[in-house]
């Protein structure tokens, strides 16, 4: 056995893995990056964030065109060429994946395409098209990510039952589409397919869709779904699915206990994601997994095996690319002897629906559940000139504030562009900013970013474009 020796091996080239590999290389380490797919970028780039945002952009265009009549602009009905749309989407992915490969090459990160398998705590075997390769490393970083869960009861081997991966491939536009799961993935894909013309029924076992978000923030999104989906059924459980000619027969139990049997052209299952832990040879190492199968890692991203770190979806928590990227930095810094940890790190969440929904830090429902004293201010976008210029007053910006110190603990935004706007909230929280800091920072007019400033002003009862009873005195008033 002629093993390749390296300082660090990274298993998985998603936004966690390639970030870890590049950062370690930038810090002067010899790095090998292993990826089973020929195209780098992981789920985020290939079957997640990027393709879904491309498709959402295309569908927004259709929707905006349809709604432009009131602006005195009339288009004909959109003609959709799915092959072309798919090719355009693929071209974006190709460009980005090529970019990652280029960046790896310039950093002298060796990329090996193949499946990695731990022989022991110091050795990784890689199955490549050219046969087995053995890598002896000082440290390994597992960044194998997650995949869409498909419960075995639904796994009929029928392509009409899709997960997000297949749905993003957008082979056709089913007339009747059932979406199982009202989380962010189901909502985003539901938005795309409903605008493209599918009649959508969404079922969710929980009593509400988008259950993780504060209900007041989720309301405009739910309103969109109510108007554009055929039906939303909460508290509903799918009992079974079976192939019935060219349809899928679905039996479900409604919230009132009633059984319902329906036929759908396609079913999209979005009931969560499972970690990619199997067939990694973890049993040959000291790495441990939890009851849900995620790798157990501490806040320094260290596993129970001192040679191995783990980052990203495979360790659980928020299954988000930007969380993985931060964890990548922590893992590399810990390996190179720095004192870093994933502690008190704010991870913003964005749901790319129509309108978008984004939050960071403490949410109102979390504060209520934990009995944390807070004050909340909400600025309605109906008072934002910018929102009215594109006919979207259905937004809200809200701040969660620590009453004693007036420190900003959480920010939530619903509205078009919320995903971009939330970054300011993340900076504010990370900087320990107070409401005064936000209120006294001049925001450009006319922009949606003003809603953050004005919601801060509302806290003091001073918002220019909204009237609210004075809640607080500003520091100047107190000292006056």
């Amino acid at each position, binding site marked *: 056995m002629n093993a390749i020796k390296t300082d660090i091996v990274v298993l998985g080239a998603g936004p966690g893995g390639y970030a870890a590999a590049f950062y370690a290389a930038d810090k002067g380490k010899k790095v090998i990056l292993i990826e089973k797919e020929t195209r780098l970028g992981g789920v985020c780039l290939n079957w997640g964030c990027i393709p879904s945002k491309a498709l959402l952009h295309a569908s927004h265009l259709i929707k905006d065109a349809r709604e432009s009549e009131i602006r005195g602009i009339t288009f004909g009905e959109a003609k959709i060429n799915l092959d072309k749309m798919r090719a355009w989407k693929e071209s974006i992915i190709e460009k980005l994946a090529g970019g990652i490969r280029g960046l790896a090459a310039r950093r002298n990160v060796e990329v090996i395409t193949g499946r990695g398998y731990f022989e022991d705590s110091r050795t990784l075997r890689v199955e490549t098209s050219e046969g087995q390769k053995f890598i002896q490393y000082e440290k390994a970083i597992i960044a194998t990510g997650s995949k869409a869960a498909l419960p075995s009861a639904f796994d009929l081997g029928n392509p009409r039952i899709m997960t997000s991966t297949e749905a993003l491939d957008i082979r056709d536009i089913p007339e009747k589409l059932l979406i199982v799961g009202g989380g962010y993935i189901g909502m985003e894909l539901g938005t795309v397919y409903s605008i493209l013309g599918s009649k959508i029924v969404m079922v969710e076992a929980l009593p509400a869709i988008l259950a993780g978000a504060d209900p007041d923030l989720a309301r405009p999104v739910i309103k969109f779904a109510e108007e554009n989906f055929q039906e939303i059924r909460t508290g509903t459980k799918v009992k079974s699915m079976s192939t019935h000619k060219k349809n899928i027969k679905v039996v479900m139990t409604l919230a009132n206990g009633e059984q319902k049997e329906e036929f759908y052209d396609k079913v999209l299952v979005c009931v969560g994601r499972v970690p990619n832990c199997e067939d990694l040879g973890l049993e040959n190492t000291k790495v441990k997994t939890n009851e849900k199968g995620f790798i157990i890692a501490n806040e320094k991203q260290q596993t129970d095996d001192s040679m191995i770190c783990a980052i990203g979806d495979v360790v659980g928590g928020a299954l988000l690319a930007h969380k993985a990227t931060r964890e990548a930095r922590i893992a590399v810094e810990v390996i190179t002897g720095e004192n870093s940890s994933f502690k*008190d790190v704010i991870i913003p969440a964005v749901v790319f629906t129509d309108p978008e929904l984004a939050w960071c830090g403490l949410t109102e429902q979390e*504060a209520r559940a934990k009995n944390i*004293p807070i004050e909340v201010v909400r600025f309605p976008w109906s008072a934002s000139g910018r929102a009215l210029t594109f006919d979207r007053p259905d937004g809200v910006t809200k701040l969660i504030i620590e009453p*004693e110190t007036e420190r900003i603990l959480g920010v939530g935004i619903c509205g078009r562009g919320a995903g971009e706007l939330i970054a300011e909230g993340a900076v504010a929280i990370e900087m*320990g900013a107070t409401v005064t800091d936000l209120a006294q920072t001049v925001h450009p007019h006319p922009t949606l970013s003003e809603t953050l400033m004005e919601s801060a002003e509302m806290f003091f009862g001073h918002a220019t474009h909204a009237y609210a009873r004075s809640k607080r005195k500003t520091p100047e008033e107190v000292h006056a």
Partner: protein
Amino acid sequence: MDIRVPRLGEGAESGSVINILVKEGDKVQKDQTLIELENEKAIAPIPSTEAGVITKILVKVGDKISVGQPIVSLSQDGAAAAPQAEKSQASSPAPSGAPQQSPSPAAPSYSAAQAPASYGAPYQYQSAGGFAPPASPTVRKMAVDLGIDLTRVKGSEGGGRISMNDLKAYILYLQGVAFSGQPAAGIQAPKAAAPLADFSKWGPISKKPVSPLRKKIAEKMHESWSTIPHVTQNDEVDITDLMAASKHYAPAYEAHNVRLTLTAIVLKACVQALKKYPQFNSSYDEAAGEIVVKEYYHIGVAVDTEQGLIVPVLRDVDKKSLLEISRELGDLAEKTRQRKVSADDLRGGTFTVSNLGGIGGTHFTPIINKPEVAILGVSRGSYRAVVRDKKIEQRLIMPISVSYDHRVIDGADGARFTRELSTALESFPSAAMALDKDKGSKGAKTAAKAAESPKSKTNFKKSKVLVKGKR
């Protein structure tokens, strides 16, 4: 609802229940005193924060209770009281539910004006929601790299945010502590007191527990004595004329039911010397590397009580007349002896006077009342044979001792200040003693009369000095 022990003030986290003034079933008003709590320096009445009927008393006399602990359970009948209670519950920031109303509200743990931070007492950041203290990622990263616990660092910015300067100040403070050999605030000295011999082997003994006050005195004295390099400058003051004048004016004060004491006059003289040497009216902020000079003159006066030494503070001595000072001094001393002084009465001093003249002795070494930098000790005056103008005269001589912090004050200034103080007393203007109605023509006459007094033969000469002193 429960009424809890409010925040009592700086450094006073607990106390012993010495008196319960209510019983179960009593109807109490808001602000009515429920119990009396003895802490290190004072007896604090703890008022009810709400009106209602006491359903249960949760403490008994002798209990040692601390901030946030429930004292009594209150039932609130009537709609008028209820919403207020709710409001106070809802807006209560601390998870302990400590009522916001307190007899002596302590400064909040963070304030925008609190810069730079100093660490006289241990600091611990607390967040009702369990959040880490606010600080930018840069500051947090530096803290992690240096192994600094940010919950120990006082933030000077809005919302208690810790700036890079706050972190630096804390590190300087830690470094100062490391090199001074003193334990940091909040860190107990590891050295345990050596066990004492069994004294009963040699004869009968009795034991009594150390009172909270005695313990506080012991801690405070030890801290001051071991952290401040003390120098004591002695001097002698000729108070013959001063005492003659004060004797003359005393009846006028008595008419106001006020006793004109030497201590009151000494306080006035101290202001003159402190104004001339402002470094004696300062504090040394090691952490910030600054000397904080105070532009107010709040002078502490050591009072001997049955339980031990207490130092109440007389405010704005420079702005008050001798009559006001004398009156307040009498009241304050009386209040202190009865242990009725509030925590606020004990705070904010800039200089301290300890007058042991009533007991006797010559010079002594007073210990500086930290964070002040100087203290005056006054001993008993006595008649001595003094050579003046080549003649031996009988003069009343009072020994004084000024202890000062040699880190802040140099020896020459120590001597100059002490001399200034002596001169201020020796040439104390009798006009300053005169009461309003005595001023004017009558005042002048009485002064002249004092000068003609046959008791002091050199008064004529001295009155010239008096005139000089008035400038």
